[in-house]
């Protein structure tokens, strides 16, 4: 079996059956674009929900009254050293009062009346991941000089579970879609090859071995899948790039921060597409000629 023969035969076949080749490639492209769109959507929704979630992770740590500078500092560095703490910002009690005043807005002057600021000094903690909340709170409570730790436990756990839920749904959706795409592409290639069963049986009758017949078919399927994958990647790139530009330019920019970058999407979906396209192209042709080979 010569490689040159296989290659020559493959390309001849692609051309001889050009209508079929065209139909197969377009079906592959169509399927992969659906898959790709959902893939990108899920990727982004995940990212946004991950990002949005972490906005809710502020924990307030009220310090006991009358700590000196060193004690305060050491508490601060203990907190910062905890795993999961991104930022801990010291908020002096007068700053806290100012903020309250701002909150009251036009009624803020009412707070001017205090002789002594009744609020405590505090640290405001931002977490790297909302999932660390429980752990961090527990650790902080062990530190000396803390009066109270404030955070909304229920709210946080609800947000965590919603985000988990979105992730799971997205993941399942993608798995289902991969299965369905696999199925459609496989089916398409099967149908495309079915019109060639006479051809295959004749080849067998004149003494061709299974692999002699199979190689060009496998290569054909792989190429169909590959070309389909490349075209889909191209289309996805253009579409996503366009959407991305719109989203990041305009006032939507508050979402845009969490969008997955064009390059990452491009490389991810290319890998996905080529794996599925070529894999199923090759596998599809092997399985679909198997029954015809049996003569």
């Amino acid at each position, binding site marked *: 079996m010569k490689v040159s023969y296989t290659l020559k035969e493959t390309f001849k*076949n692609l051309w001889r059956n050009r209508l079929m080749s065209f139909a197969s490639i377009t079906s592959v492209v169509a399927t992969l674009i659906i898959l790709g769109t959902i893939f990108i959507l899920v990727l982004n929704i995940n990212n946004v929900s991950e990002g949005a979630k972490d906005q809710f992770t502020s924990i307030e740590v009220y310090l006991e009254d009358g700590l000196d500078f060193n004690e305060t500092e050491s508490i601060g560095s203990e907190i910062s050293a905890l795993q999961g703490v991104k930022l801990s910002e010291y908020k002096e009690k007068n700053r806290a009062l100012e903020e309250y005043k701002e909150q009251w807005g036009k009624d803020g002057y009412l707070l001017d009346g205090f002789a002594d600021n009744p609020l405590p000094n505090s640290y405001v903690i931002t977490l790297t991941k909302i999932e660390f909340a429980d752990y961090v709170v527990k650790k902080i409570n062990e530190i000396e000089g803390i009066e109270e730790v404030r955070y909304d436990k229920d709210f946080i756990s609800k947000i965590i579970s919603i985000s988990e839920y979105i992730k799971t749904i997205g993941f399942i959706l993608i798995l289902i879609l991969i299965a369905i795409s696999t199925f459609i592409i496989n089916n398409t290639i099967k149908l495309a090859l079915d019109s060639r069963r006479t051809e295959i049986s004749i080849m067998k009758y004149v003494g061709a071995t299974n692999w002699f017949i199979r190689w060009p078919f496998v290569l054909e399927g792989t190429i169909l899948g590959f070309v389909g994958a490349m075209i889909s990647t191209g289309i996805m790139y253009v579409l996503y790039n366009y959407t991305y530009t719109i989203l990041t330019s305009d006032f939507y920019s508050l979402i845009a921060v969490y969008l997955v970058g064009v390059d990452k999407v491009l490389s991810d979906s290319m890998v996905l597409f080529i794996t599925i396209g070529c894999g199923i192209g090759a596998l599809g042709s092997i399985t679909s000629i198997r029954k015809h080979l049996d003569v």
Partner: protein
Amino acid sequence: MIKFNQVSKRYKNGVVGLRDNTISIEKGEFVFLIGSSGAGKTTFVKLILKEIEPSQGRIFLDGDDITKLHRRKIPYVRRKLGIVFQDFRLLPKMTVAENVAYTLEIVGGYSKRKIRSQVSMVLGVVGLLDKSNMKPHQLSGGEKQRVSIARAIINNPKVLIADEPTGNLDPETSWEIMKILRQINRRGTTVVMITHDKEVVDIMKKRVIELNDGKIIRDQMNGGYGYEG
């Protein structure tokens, strides 16, 4: 070369193609296989080709028992045979030259030049050099038949089996084909030819095997088409 030992073939739908035939065809023989329509002649060929399996009995080819054969070994058996199919079986999307060359490509080991010269040679023999680049659907019935013959003889098979190789040919072209078959036979190839052509059988004076309703009813050296031979 070819040996049938009590071979029967009953098709799935119950029709009997061959019933209990024992026959031996030696290396270098030229045999006519005759019989009315549906007598079992093509069934005989298909059994040797391993296109179908016998229901009973054993089949030997070139000394090997090919009754039960692993699927993978079948192609190698087929390469020993040159077959002219009754329904031609040309690859519809290949040109005449590609169809004929395919047999050599399968076996492998031929250089491009060697293949091209061999193809020209056999196409010249059957008188189709000028149709090398046509597709089968652009050919007349007789031309398709001749392509089929060219393909069968290109790799000097040990056995040449021709199922009505002259069925679609005028008498003149038929005789050209007969000449080719005789030449090939003289070079040592065993030839089994199925035919309805009384004249050819009568004139050639070769061994005649007659089938009727799946059973060999005559096996005669130097025979003719009818009983009088």
